[in-house]
């Protein structure tokens, strides 16, 4: 299996670009979330993000909040995450990144969480509320286990922080397109392009752009200057409104924005 970094670089070289798809584990059931993630991989996602349902998702808009609340109400517990990873990994070779707020990881035990991620077949983790400044243990553990770690950079980040966060990341660094929470936006901010420009000039780490992307045109636009487009809300909404077939259609639609 190729690493996240290799896939992003190869897709940039070929001019295709990359689509990174987020979907929460356990929504609306464990089995459904496995089928959803597999369908996203089979229909055009180059990298998968598996979201961990959490009680206090401060970076997420209403669509993802409601979906992850439903997953928890349906009985999702943390150990189910690793089962979802195992089942998706058994069916597709697409790289898998966990996306988790920090407290579940901390409570589970950073080292044990990392080991269970690795053993079940995930490549690393995106940590939306953990900045590198607070991440000493995760930096050490992810390094030792060869796991990717994806930190965020934002339009508000100083140049020093852009450099530090990008250099601390492995796989890619997550460029937050706009100052706001997850959810669809009609137009992407010029801020995203400027931010990616700063990342590119200050670090060798690839960067994907997320927050607000929901159309093929936006996927194309972002891949014109970054190493990938991250989509979450649009996929969750497609599943919520039209089930698996809606998700497949949305994945194909967005993948059509790739070269």
């Amino acid at each position, binding site marked *: 299996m190729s690493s996240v970094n290799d896939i992003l670089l190869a897709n940039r070289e070929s001019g295709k670009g990359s689509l990174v798809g987020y979907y929460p584990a356990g929504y609306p059931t464990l089995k459904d979330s496995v089928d959803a993630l597999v369908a996203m991989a089979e229909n055009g996602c180059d990298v998968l993000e598996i979201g961990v349902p*959490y*009680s*206090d*998702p*401060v*970076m997420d*808009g*209403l669509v993802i*909040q*409601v979906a992850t*609340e439903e997953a*928890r109400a349906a009985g999702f*517990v*943390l150990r189910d995450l690793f089962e979802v990873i195992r089942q998706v990994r058994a069916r597709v070779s697409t790289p898998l990144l966990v996306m988790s707020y*920090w*407290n*579940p*990881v*901390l*409570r*589970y035990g950073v080292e044990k969480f990392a080991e269970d991620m690795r053993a079940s077949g995930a490549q690393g983790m995106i940590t*939306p*509320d*953990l*900045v590198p*400044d*607070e991440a000493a243990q995760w930096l050490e553990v992810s390094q030792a286990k060869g796991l990717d770690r994806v*930190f*965020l*950079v*934002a*339009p*508000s*980040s*100083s140049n020093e*922080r852009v450099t530090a*966060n990008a250099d601390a990341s492995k796989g890619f660094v997550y460029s*937050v397109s706009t*100052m*706001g*929470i997850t959810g669809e936006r009609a137009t992407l901010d010029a801020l995203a392009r400027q931010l990616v420009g700063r990342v590119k000039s200050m670090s060798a780490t690839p960067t994907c752009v997320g927050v607000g992307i929901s159309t093929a045109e936006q996927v194309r636009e972002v891949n014109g200057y970054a190493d990938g487009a991250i989509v979450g809300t649009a996929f969750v909404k497609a599943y919520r409104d039209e089930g698996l077939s809606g998700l497949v259609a949305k994945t194909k639609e967005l993948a059509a924005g790739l070269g």
Partner: protein
Amino acid sequence: MKLSEQVGPYYGEYGGRFVPEPLIAALDQLEATYEAMRIDPGFIAELAELHKTYTGRPSIITEAKRFAAHFGDIRVFLKREDLNHTGSHKINNVMGQALLAKKMGKKRIIAETGAGQHGVASATAAAFFGMDCVVYMGQVDTERQALNVARMQLLGAEVIPVTSGSRTLKDAINEALRDWVANVDTTHYLLGTVAGPHPFPTMVRDFHSVIGYEAREQMLELTGKLPDAVAACVGGGSNAIGIFHAFLDDSDVALWGFEAAGDGVDTPRHAATLSMGTPGVLHGAKSYMLQDADGQTMESHSISAGLDYPGVGPEHSWLKDLGRANYHGVTDAEAMNAMKLLSQTEGIIPAIETAHGLAGIEHLAKILPAGANILVNLSGRGDKDMETAAKYFGLMGDK
């Protein structure tokens, strides 16, 4: 180093900044502005003048003799934060942060509120300084504190009921953080307690520490010595830290925080974070919290909306681990009894939050030596709680 000199980001292993990257720049700006202003003579004088002419500081101390007589040979002194403008200690922090927001050129403030006291104080400061104000309040709390919703609206604030999660204070903070991420250029998040990411725990403590510094002088003047114990209720912990801070290095003064034990700490329905919780990360800081085995935040329960919070400020967690402060749970029933007792012995109706600290006196009277002087932070008045009290005591039945 003296305990009182400890500042963030870390209190021992607690505190920090566990927030999404987009917020870091705003926290850096706030920290830099606050660091400059906390030693700026102009800022200090301006805030002191506001407290003197608007808040109503210094607040007085009332000795509660008839109340104390119920607990044996002790003396009880009430630090009357209930007499501040807007009816609670919350205004101390709000005026400080609103003045900072003005210095940072921010024209809009947002706040979370549980009981509504912090929301009312924030709406008040916004009106005073001519700023826009949005208050996030859990939908459950808008119902049980309807009067405070009306007060905030009358003051010109927009109150947004939060319908996500448990629909209480915890979720109101989440929603305020989401707003802040999106509007950080124009907006100051006026966090109402000593929790949250650095610099909030230190800054909010500093703004409330006036309570303890005044009380320390007043007790020396009134009794010729320091009190034997200082007591306060603890939800997020702002009024407790405010009165504790001046006494942190007086090792003979016992510090007691009384948490909401709801139906009892042996039931799942309580908010006794320090007594029953475990360390974790919530709302941007590491501290004790109520969480399940998966690190999901648990719902707290208390008859008092202002204490109904599954987290607590990191400095309290540090003081607990150090053994410098003691924390003890008080049930809904104990708090309501104390509310009634103070009302009927002293003619002072306390907020239900505050009543938890008063209920703790019974506990302290058993363990302190005879003749002990106990200083209690009377953090808020109970007008806002009349509907809850009327229902609880069946006061509307005389028709």
